[in-house]
C-alpha cells in the first residue's frame, strides 16, 4: 500500500513540476540538434535574428485571427521567421553592409514592430507580453486536468521534425556545412536543401520561443554545442555530446530554480553557460594543439 503523502506528492509533481521540465528538455534537445550545424556554418547569430522576429509574427497572427490559436500563432511566427531570413539575404545583395550589421538591423526592426503592435492592441490579458517574450514562461506550462499541454506536443513535434530532417539528409547537410562550394560542384540541390533547413530551423526556434523566450533560446542553441565542439573530434560525437550537455543544463537549471524560485529559463541558460565555461578551460590545452594554425582574430 502506497502512503497518501507519496501519491499526493507524485500528483503535484506530475501536474506542476514535470510539464515544464519535459518542455525544457524537448526544447533543449531540438535546439542542440540544429545548433550543431549552425555552429559549424558560423551562422549562430542568425538564431538571434529569427528568435526576435517571432514576436511580431505571433502578434499579427492574433490580430488577424482574433483568438489565441496555437496553429495560427505558429504559422504567423513561422512566416515572420521566413521574412527575416529572406530580407537579410536580399539586403546582403543590395547594400554594402556585412551580415552582422544586417542581422542587427532586421532583428531590431522586427522586434520593435512587435513591441509597438503589442502596446497598441493591449494583449496583456492573453498571456502575451514583453516580459514573457524576452524571458520565457516555462512555469505556465502545467497539466491541470492530467492531459498533455499543447506546448509540449508542439515542442515534441518540432524535435521529431528536426531529428527526421537531419537523419534523412544527413550526408548532404554535412557536405553543405563543411564545403558549400563542393556541394554545388557535384550538383547537390543546395537551394532546395537550404529552404528545408531554414524551415526546420524556424520551426524549432518558434517552438522554443514559447517556452524559454527570445534571448535565452540563443543560449540553448549555442552553449551545449560550443562545449561539445571543444571536446569532440567527429561530428556524430559532437552531436551526441551536445545532447548530453543540453539535458544536463536543463536538469541542473530547473533543479536550481525549484530550490530558489528564480526564473527557470534564466537558470537553465546560466547552467548551459557554465558548462561551456568549464569546457573552455578544461579543453583548452587539447584544442590549442589542434588549432595551432588558426588565423588571428579581427575582433577589438
Amino acid at each position: 500500500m502506497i502512503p497518501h503523502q507519496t501519491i499526493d506528492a507524485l500528483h503535484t509533481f506530475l501536474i506542476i513540476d514535470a510539464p515544464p521540465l519535459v518542455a525544457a528538455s524537448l526544447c533543449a534537445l531540438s535546439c542542440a540538434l540544429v545548433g550543431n550545424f549552425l555552429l559549424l556554418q558560423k551562422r549562430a547569430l542568425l538564431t538571434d535574428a529569427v528568435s526576435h522576429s517571432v514576436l511580431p509574427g505571433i502578434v499579427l497572427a492574433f490580430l488577424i485571427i482574433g483568438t489565441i490559436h496555437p496553429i495560427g500563432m505558429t504559422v504567423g511566427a513561422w512566416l515572420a521567421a521566413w521574412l527575416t531570413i529572406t530580407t537579410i539575404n536580399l539586403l546582403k545583395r543590395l547594400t554594402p553592409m556585412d551580415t552582422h550589421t544586417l542581422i542587427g538591423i532586421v532583428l531590431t526592426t522586427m522586434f520593435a514592430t512587435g513591441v509597438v503592435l503589442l502596446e497598441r492592441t493591449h494583449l496583456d490579458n492573453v498571456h502575451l507580453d514583453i516580459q514573457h517574450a524576452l524571458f520565457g514562461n516555462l512555469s505556465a506550462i502545467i497539466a491541470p486536468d492530467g492531459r498533455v499541454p499543447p506546448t509540449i506536443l508542439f515542442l515534441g513535434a518540432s524535435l521529431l521534425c528536426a531529428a527526421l530532417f537531419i537523419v534523412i539528409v544527413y550526408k548532404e547537410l554535412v557536405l553543405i556545412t563543411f564545403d558549400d562550394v563542393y556541394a554545388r560542384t557535384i550538383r547537390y540541390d543546395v537551394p532546395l536543401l537550404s529552404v528545408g533547413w531554414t524551415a526546420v530551423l524556424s520551426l524549432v526556434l518558434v517552438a522554443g520561443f514559447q517556452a524559454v523566450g527570445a534571448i535565452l533560446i540563443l543560449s540553448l542553441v549555442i552553449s551545449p554545442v560550443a562545449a561539445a565542439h571543444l571536446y569532440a573530434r567527429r561530428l556524430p560525437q559532437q552531436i551526441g555530446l551536445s545532447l548530453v550537455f543540453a539535458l544536463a543544463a536543463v536538469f541542473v537549471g530547473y533543479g536550481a530554480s525549484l530550490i530558489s524560485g528564480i526564473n527557470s529559463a534564466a537558470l537553465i541558460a546560466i547552467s548551459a553557460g557554465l558548462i561551456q565555461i568549464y569546457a573552455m578551460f578544461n579543453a583548452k590545452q587539447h584544442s590549442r594543439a589542434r588549432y595551432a594554425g588558426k588565423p588571428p582574430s579581427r575582433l577589438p
Partner: protein
Amino acid sequence: MTDSVFLAVHYNVIVVLVTASLSGGLCGLIGVLGVMRGYSLVSDALAHATLPGLALGFLLVVAIMPESTLTPPFFWLLLGAGLTASLALLSIQWITRNTPLSSDSAIASVLAFFFAVGVALLGIIQELDAVGQAGIERFLLGNLATTTFDEAVVVTGLACFVFTTFLVLKKEMFALCFDPLFCATQRIEKGAPLMPIFLLLATVSGIQTIGLILLVALLTLPAACGMVLQLSFYRLLVFASLQGASASALGGLISYLYEGLPSGALIVLILSAQFASLVVWRLVTRTHTPPPIEPS
C-alpha cells in the same frame, strides 16, 4: 498656476530632447566605427550585458542605503552597466583568441549568458520587494519620458567626452577604420584602444534612450543609411550622428506625447523606415547593376 505647469512641461520636454539627441548622436557616430570594423553584433552583446550590471548596481545601492525611498541614482546603475559590458567585451576577445570557437559563437554565447544572469538578478530584486525596482525594467525597451535631470547630466558628460576625444583623434580613427594593419606599421595606434572604449560609452549612454534590447539599431541603422547613400567618411560621420540625434529626439517626443509607447521601439521604426526608403531609392536610381553575389 498655468504658467508654472507650462514651464514644468517645457522643462521636462527639454530634458528628454537633450538626452535623446545627445545619446542618439553619440551612438550614430560610434556606430559608423562599429559597422566599418564589423563590431555590429559585438555591440549587441555589450548592450545585453548591461542588464546584470544595472541589477547589481541597484542591489548595491539597496544594500548601502536600505532606508532610501528614492529611486537609485542613475550614475551607480550606469557604472554597473559599464563594468559588466566591459567584462562581456573581454570575454568575447578571450574566447575568439584562446578557443577554436568562431566569433559568431563567442558573441552569441556571451550575449545569452550575461542576459541570463541579468534576468536571474532581476528575479532576486523582485523578491526583495524594494522601492523603485521598476527603475530597471524601463532600461529594457527605453523610456525617455521618465528621464530626470541628473540622467541628462550624465549623458551630456559622456557625449562631451566622446565627441571631444573623437575630434582630436579623427585622423587616427579614419586610418583605423580602413586599414588597421597600416596603422600598426606606421605606429599610429593611438586610437586603437579607444575604439572599444568608445563602443562601451556609446552603449552605456544609449540604454536610457532606446533600451538595451534594441540598442544595436541605433548603432547600425544611421551608419547603414549613410553607407547606402555612399557618402565619404567624414560626411558619413556627420550624417550618422545627425540622423541618430534627430530620430531619437523625434521618437522621444512621440513617446512623451503618447503615454505608454516605449521610446526605443519608436526610434527603431523611424530609423528603419528611413533605411528602407533609402534602399528602395538607391535601387530605382541605380545606373548599373553589380554582379549578383550568391547568398551563402
